[in-house]
């Protein structure tokens, strides 16, 4: 099937490796040294992962915290509190137009 021809012999002669190259490759394989080829492949894979993963990380929207507000009336004040966080005092329940101007932020966890 594969009777050798002059062309085959020429091909083999042209592609013949040097003894040094043979020794180098055998020693490298025996020592289990990762070749530069493998290292380059790993670098490529890392670069592709980074290129694909970075936009996903950047595009991910921040998680929203669920906020539970507690609204109560205390005289002419509207008391808005959030469990474990700030307490917000809104003034003049009878006059809603003033309420935004009279918001008071009290330190975390504090209640009046």
């Amino acid at each position, binding site marked *: *099937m*594969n*009777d*050798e*021809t*002059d*062309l*085959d012999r*020429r*091909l*083999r002669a*042209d*592609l*013949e*490796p040097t003894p040094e*190259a*043979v020794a*180098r*490759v*055998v020693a*490298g*394989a*025996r020592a*289990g*040294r990762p*070749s*530069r*080829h*493998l290292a380059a492949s790993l670098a*490529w894979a890392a670069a592709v992962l980074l290129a694909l993963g970075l936009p996903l990380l950047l595009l991910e929207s921040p998680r929203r915290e669920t906020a539970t507000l507690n609204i109560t009336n205390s005289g002419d004040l509207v008391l808005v509190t959030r469990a474990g966080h700030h307490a917000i005092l809104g003034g003049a329940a009878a006059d809603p137009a003033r309420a935004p101007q009279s918001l008071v932020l009290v330190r975390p966890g504090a209640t009046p």
Partner: protein
Amino acid sequence: MTLDAILAELAPGLLRFTLGLLGERAVAEEVAQDALAALVVRWQRHGPPENAAAFVFAIARRRAGRERLKRRLLVPLVLVANRFAPVPGPEALAVGRSQVAATLAALDRLPRPEREAILLVAAGERSGSEAATLLGISPSALKMRLHRARRRLSEALGEAVPVKRSP
């Protein structure tokens, strides 16, 4: 046969095979070394494979294929880089015109199935049945590929159509 003896026996043919597939000695050495290193790992963990030559040549063929694909994807970048590369000197030009370079260029122009077939048999010195198994084709299909590959190579190299050596 010991692992060292197998490695020493397979390395030259494997290097010829990968050089013919890839056309660059440095990359060919890398791929051949990876394939032989895979054999070492296989040998140490699970014992020798049924056919060590088929094992390393199959790995080298796969890796060389990936290397060629990667190179093809990088062609635009290489073209841009070459625009700014220095003009090759007389020595580089002489090397480029050498017989080895002509052979590599002729191999590069062959269709992949034919290139792999001729390199497995002629450069890698694999038997016909082994090469057919490695390529996943029938022996008669391999015979056809070898015939076409030899004809095209001869034409590309400006040689007479190869004549079978008398036994």
